[in-house]
């Protein structure tokens, strides 16, 4: 058996893999030159000279593999041969993305810390236009149903239930002053939720056709045109059966809000209502008249995103699934300590209105990839705020985030505004690259 590598970096990686049945300690080391396309006999005892990357630009993956797989025995000569590369490796290992991956790998292990995986710890760098230099930190995000209960609903396509949910999220920076969203929320929410509509009653014939097409899909060779054709046939069969779905919930909430040092903190008790409508069928009036999606539908038409009836690719097709979801809440805020409001000399409990809206829609296609825009807006307002709070502009807070990016690859995000406990607006701009397992 032979192993072939196409590039110098790939060769380096191949050489770093110990040959099956030949532990490297037992084999006499033989230096192998870095020749792209080199064919290496399987099982031949090979080793990598420490200077393999000398004089050439090694990419980050190969250099990182080199260090991780071969240990530190080569680091000294590696440093001498190319200090610049070593700096790149260090910055790679220190990057939030690498640390998040290492942390995730650790959390996947079989030990008592696995529950932390559900908490979604992510190492992050916080960079703010107004606060200057970046700060390292982490974010966490946890959401879990503690208990749920089914309630009867006589209509078709109707789900109704009760749900007790625990949620927590926030950002923590090594230097709290550099945290642009220094606001942690931990809350328990008891919701009555209901979803109605979404699918109009299919006939037995529809179900039979679906099962036939699904069998074609399963039997088709993986990644083949035949497989994709079967999926498209299923989409064509089922999408006309979709209808408008209305989802709403009403909930009682108890939340603890603080900054990351827990110096500023307060409790909030209240209720919220959330409403969402999805017109899953393109023929729905709610889809045709979703004016908010018109600009994005125009961009999709220009980029040839849509496949239109008749095979054209420049039709104007607003999305009925891109209606914003809306949440409104009313809270009683109490027990405030060291909040900006209290520091302004007002320590009384108060009522707070909060609003939130979210939506996401595709805007273009480039090659096989899609580009989406997502927007989230939050608003908090103290009701009947005393003049001293109004004068200091502490009676309302708003914050919005817009992200432009695809499933993978480059993304751009921009956040503006402030959250409760923030004294001033902050603008955070991020340009990054995301990739997934």
């Amino acid at each position: 058996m032979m192993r072939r590598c196409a590039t110098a970096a790939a060769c380096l990686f191949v050489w770093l893999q110990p040959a099956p049945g030949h532990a490297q300690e037992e084999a006499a080391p033989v230096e192998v030159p870095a020749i792209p396309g080199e064919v290496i006999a399987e099982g031949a005892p090979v080793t990598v000279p420490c200077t393999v990357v000398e004089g050439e630009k090694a990419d980050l993956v190969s250099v990182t593999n080199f260090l991780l797989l071969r240990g530190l025995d080569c680091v000294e000569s590696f440093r001498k041969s190319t200090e610049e590369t070593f700096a790149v490796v260090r910055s790679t290992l220190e990057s939030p993305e690498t640390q998040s991956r290492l942390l995730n790998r650790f959390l996947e292990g079989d030990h008592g810390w696995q529950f932390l995986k559900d908490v979604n710890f992510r190492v992050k760098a916080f960079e703010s236009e107004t606060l200057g230099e970046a700060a390292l930190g982490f974010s966490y995000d946890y959401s879990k149903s503690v208990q749920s209960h089914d309630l009867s609903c006589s209509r078709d396509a109707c789900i109704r239930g009760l749900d007790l949910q625990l949620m927590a999220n926030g950002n923590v920076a090594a230097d709290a002053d550099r945290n642009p969203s220094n606001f942690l929320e931990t809350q328990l929410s008891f919701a009555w939720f209901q979803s109605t509509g979404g699918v109009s009653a299919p006939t037995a014939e529809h179900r039979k056709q679906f099962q036939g097409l699904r069998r074609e899909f399963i039997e088709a060779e993986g990644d083949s045109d035949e497989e994709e054709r079967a999926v498209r046939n299923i989409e064509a069969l089922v999408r006309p059966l979709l209808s408008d779905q209305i989802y709403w919930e009403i909930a009682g909430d108890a939340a603890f809000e603080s900054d990351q040092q827990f110096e500023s903190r307060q409790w909030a008790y209240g209720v919220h209502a959330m409403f969402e409508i999805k017109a899953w069928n393109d023929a729905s009036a709610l889809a045709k008249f979703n004016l908010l999606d018109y600009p994005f539908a125009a961009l999709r038409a220009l980029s040839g995103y849509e496949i239109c009836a008749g095979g054209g690719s420049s039709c104007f097709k607003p999305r009925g699934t891109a209606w914003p979801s809306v949440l409104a809440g009313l809270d009683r805020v109490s027990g405030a300590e060291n909040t900006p409001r209290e520091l302004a000399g007002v320590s009384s409990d108060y009522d707070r209105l909060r609003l939130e809206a979210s939506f996401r829609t595709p805007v273009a296609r480039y090659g096989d990839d899609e580009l989406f825009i997502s927007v989230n807006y939050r608003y908090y307002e103290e009701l009947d705020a005393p003049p001293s709070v109004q004068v200091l502009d502490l009676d309302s807070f708003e914050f919005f985030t817009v992200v432009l990016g695809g499933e993978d690859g480059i993304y751009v995000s921009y956040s503006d505004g402030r959250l409760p406990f923030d004294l001033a607006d902050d603008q955070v701009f991020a340009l990054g690259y995301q990739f997934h397992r």
Partner: protein
Amino acid sequence: MAEWNKNNLAHTNTFLALRILAQTKRKFSAAGNLAVKQLEFFVAGETPQMRAARAKSLASQMHNLFVMVFASRLEQGATNAGAVKTMADVLADGEKTVHELADAADEKYDFSEQIE
């Protein structure tokens, strides 16, 4: 966790539901590793309350497809709300994968083919 496989109806049905609902355009082989935050409904920066509610909404629509169109049944002892919540917990976690979503669904639904 069972390997991502077209012959597993939990995997196939979850993938098809997500394609029908335009949550992804990926092919089956690439969909298993797709993170929930890559699905079309997922909005960055929203509060946990909003995310949890939107996750329940999408899970409800997946439930509709599973039960009404795909002719799947709930496992014995499972309820509509419980099944929706099980899927919603995965959908509210951006780092979870479609594969994990399918395995969560498998706990609540009997996906074996029903002859009508």
